[in-house]
């Protein structure tokens, strides 16, 4: 893949923050990814589209250290990166917001944000006060409003949960946030808030990879879009050089004469 020329100054002629070269992933006889390459630039929102089973989630799990690639190389800021667990990826500032959100519903918002990275006091005990304080500050930085950081996550709406998951992903100097269909399960009225949150991350110069089926999402927040088809690279373009119907065509595996498609969304 070649980094296509971009008009937006921030993403042009820069070294990618993450680069995948020839990544393949096999699950037994199943080939989930076959020789996929891509790059992500600093401060860029990259959309990833593709039909169900195209390999989007698998590719992101490779990026976030949950899966190991069967073949191919990952580069982080130009250096080869080897992740044995999400912890390794996280150390470099790569965070993933999982499709099923991966929140503990029985626990408070603040506790979820710092799950696995709990603040401790000087005796090594869990520091509840610090986690509440940090959570409040962080949420207000992200302009996420909640009644109280002590609220249990199971009491929240889908959009609020998504916001908490994003807050967790960005709680510690994230450089890259990967979001797997963050709007898929949301009520329409909450979608816009999550998309604005993504813009907010971009303003903070965090790179975002957004997987979505919704063209509205892609065309509202993304700078560039990459299409996967049956586990392979299919197409790629800066947003301003393509159209919704062309991208929908890519999802369905066609590159010719897309103009006629009337519907906006592919489920």
């Amino acid at each position, binding site marked *: 893949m070649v980094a296509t020329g971009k008009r937006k100054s921030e993403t042009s002629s820069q070294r990618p923050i993450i680069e995948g070269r020839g990544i393949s992933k096999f699950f037994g006889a199943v080939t989930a990814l076959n020789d996929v390459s891509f790059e992500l630039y600093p401060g860029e929102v990259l959309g990833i589209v593709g039909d169900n089973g195209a390999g989007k989630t698998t590719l992101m799990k490779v990026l976030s250290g949950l899966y190991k690639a069967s073949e191919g190389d990952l580069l982080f800021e130009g250096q080869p990166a080897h992740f044995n667990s999400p912890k390794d990826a996280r150390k470099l500032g790569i965070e993933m917001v999982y499709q099923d959100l991966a929140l503990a519903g029985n*626990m408070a918002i603040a506790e979820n944000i710092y799950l696995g990275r709990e603040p401790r006091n000087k005796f090594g005990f869990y520091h509840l006060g610090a986690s509440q304080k940090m959570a409040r500050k962080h949420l207000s930085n992200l302009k996420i409003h909640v009644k109280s950081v002590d609220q249990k996550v199971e009491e929240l709406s889908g959009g609020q949960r998504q916001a908490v998951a994003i807050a967790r992903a960005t709680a510690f100097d994230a450089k890259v946030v990967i979001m797997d269909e963050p709007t898929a399960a949301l009520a329409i009225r909450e979608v816009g808030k999550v998309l604005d949150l993504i813009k907010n991350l971009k303003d903070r110069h965090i790179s975002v990879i957004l997987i979505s089926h919704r063209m509205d999402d892609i065309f509202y927040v993304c700078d560039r879009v990459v299409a996967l088809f049956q586990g392979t690279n299919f197409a790629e373009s800066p947003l301003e050089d393509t159209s919704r119907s062309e991208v929908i065509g890519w999802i369905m595996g066609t590159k010719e004469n897309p103009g006629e498609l009337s519907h906006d969304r592919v489920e």
Partner: protein
Amino acid sequence: MTESSEGQKVADQDNHTLETHTRPDGLALRLLPYIDKYGILIVIFVMVAVLYVTQPDVFLSWRNITNIFKQTAVNAMLSIGMFLAILTAGIDLSIGSVMMLGMMSAGVAQFAGMPWPIVLILAPLAGMGAGLVNGIGITKLRMPHPFIMTLGMLFMARGLGNLISGGVPLTGFPDAIRFLGSYQIPLGEYDGTRFNLPVALVLTIVVYIAFSLMLKHTVLGRRIYAIGGNPEAARVSGINVDAVLITVYGICGFMAGIGGLLLIGRTSSAFPTAGTGAELEAIAACIIGGASFFGGRGTVLGVFGGVIVMGLIKNGLNLNNVSVFYQQILIGAIIVIAVFLDVLRREIGTRK
């Protein structure tokens, strides 16, 4: 959220905050946390009232009250360990047998002439060893459910206990060993009654406070709750779930060993049938105390209440000369009711 919508088709324009939706079924929902927290206290209060009315002279005597705590101390030790396992959405069926293994280990050491500190420490250590094996089996052997591994341990521990003891009761322990289970601290005399405080009661309270602090104020404690709430979330958050689970089952076994020490104290004996069915009583106490089998829910105070309820049932029915068969029926019925309440609570809680 950012202020701009830039003419895009973003549905939500009216309100840029993510606010809680108020849900319609208000009353049941608002009562729920209180029932969760204080329901057990109401149950205890009612039981105490009923028992007091039926046995006004005996029931609330200091002697009877301390008796209840002495008798429930073993169950208290087992239940708090079981509670940790249940918090992680697991279970430990082996603790009754593991308790017996701990007792037999202490007994064998005692009659081999080892010094009492070693005898004393052996019971919880043997228990912890069995618990760690449980934990390693559950995580590293990837057993489909802790039920399986601990069921296996239920048989193995009792078999091993009988093997090392020759399958006979080992009787006659020195006071140093029996201290925890039988010693009474004299508090003095008042109005012709002597007031003694059983060490077992003090130990129970200390252990429960320690567990409560551990669960609230240590990273381990919070992670135990998180794993019970959503193990996948815990895993992707970088929590070493296996290590936490192994620790939990290790603690569970350790507490079974402590329970064994208390039983040795009370009976001055390590015997082959010790702890038979004790795991079920511990499960019952946890459930009655509001711990959820789905994991991640329940409090130490609740478990303490569950232990007390179990003790009150036994004590009350004994005082009133009611047959043990009724005790069993009553405990069984309370378990079913308690779990039904848990189911209701979840249904109301997840309704949106």
